[in-house]
């Protein structure tokens, strides 16, 4: 082989090695970034569901009132105000607040619903009956007992009552099916009263004729945070 030719070959190879050595850290950085964003997107997927309406409407952020456990003993609920871009449409609004409820509070000990439970669908009938269809994990991952099951149902019902005044009662389905109980104790056959002021329960003890308040369209106070910009869609 011509020595001059060989020198050229070695020089070319050395050049390739140099380029590869320079490019390698850049590649590694990119791979790491992608792995990290995949992790985040899984966790954010549910929260983004709650923002789906915000993409088309410039829905203002309002303080939504969500009910999680007040303490880790599961004995009572406490309201938490969360800034959410809530839709005016009652069905979208119900989905948004329920998905946020499912995503859970900052302190995971205060969850009321299993972390792997999902909302599959939400319907609103003309008579004010809301129908929430949850994944099977709502029942299978639920700690069995009257206290835990009632707390779970209460957190759903009170969260809807506080944010979606159009819902008068709520029927809970599990994977599209009617079920007898949530996890062996709390009855799911009959709907739960949600906004009882607009739908009095006839079996409730008779009270002096209560003034019927029409459902207010905006129960949550207007955004107290003027700087809150409409959320950017990633």
């Amino acid at each position, binding site marked *: 082989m011509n020595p001059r030719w060989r020198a050229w070959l070695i020089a070319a190879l050395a050049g390739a090695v140099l380029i590869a050595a320079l490019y390698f850290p850049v590649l590694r950085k990119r791979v790491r970034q992608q792995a990290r964003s995949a992790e985040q997107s899984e966790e954010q997927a549910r929260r983004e569901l709650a923002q789906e309406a915000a993409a088309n409407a410039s829905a203002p952020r309002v303080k939504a009132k969500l009910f999680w456990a007040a303490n880790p*003993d*599961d*004995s009572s609920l406490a309201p938490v105000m969360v800034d959410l871009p809530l839709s005016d449409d009652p069905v979208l609004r119900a989905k948004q607040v329920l998905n946020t409820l499912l995503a859970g509070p900052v302190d995971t000990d205060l969850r009321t619903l299993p972390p792997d439970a999902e909302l599959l669908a939400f319907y609103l009938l003309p008579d004010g009956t809301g129908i929430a269809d949850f994944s099977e994990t709502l029942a299978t991952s639920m*700690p*069995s*007992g*009257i*206290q*835990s*099951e*009632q707390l779970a*149902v209460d957190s759903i019902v009170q969260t809807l009552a506080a944010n979606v005044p159009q819902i008068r*009662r709520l029927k809970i389905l599990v994977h599209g099916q009617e079920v*007898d*109980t949530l996890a*062996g*104790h*709390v*009855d799911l*056959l*009959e*709907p*739960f*009263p949600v906004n009882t002021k607009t739908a009095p*329960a*006839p*079996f*409730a*003890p*008779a009270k002096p004729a209560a003034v019927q308040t029409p459902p207010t369209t905006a129960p949550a106070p207007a955004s107290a945070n003027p700087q809150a910009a409409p959320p950017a869609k990633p």
Partner: protein
Amino acid sequence: MVVLDPAHGGTDPGARGAGGLRESEIVLDLAAQVRRALESQGFQVMQTRSGNDNPSFDDRSSIANAQHGAVFITLHIASTGIPGTVRTYAMSDLAAPAATDGLIPWEFAQAPYLELSRKLGNEVQGQLALQFKGSPNNVQLAAVRQLRTTAAPAIAVEISSVLIQDRADLDRMMPGVADAIARGVAVFRPYYVTPVSPGGQP
């Protein structure tokens, strides 16, 4: 007549603790103690099950519904709550069915008894709160499936919890729970007037 209902059983173990505790077994032992305490107060007692079988919710309710003037108590061990506490539940408000000509649909059998059940629950829970610190002072309301179809003053008593490591901690609570239930039912007795025509005139 008091109908005691040890919950779950058969293929349904109920709440299960990490230490292998099964709600269905513990409530059977608890029922035996509650039964003795009630009998010593002069009450007749029936049980919805006395072995490891699992009657349906409706079958269990039927046993009380077939009796005149019965009281129904379903016994549970929770998988949550502060260990060593006990809660009594009565049925929450029932949304009403459409007009029924004085007949009450099976799913609303508890409706005429809501107030009596809450009175009974408060008496029992009052006794329990004296013995088990950290327990609430009053009856709690919940949409308990078993209570809905029961046409009698009906309560659920739930002990916390199956998550304890040693079953002996639950066993030690049983005599106190049994005693409190028997005392509560005895205090309730004079208040128990069967609603005259359930579902008719209020």
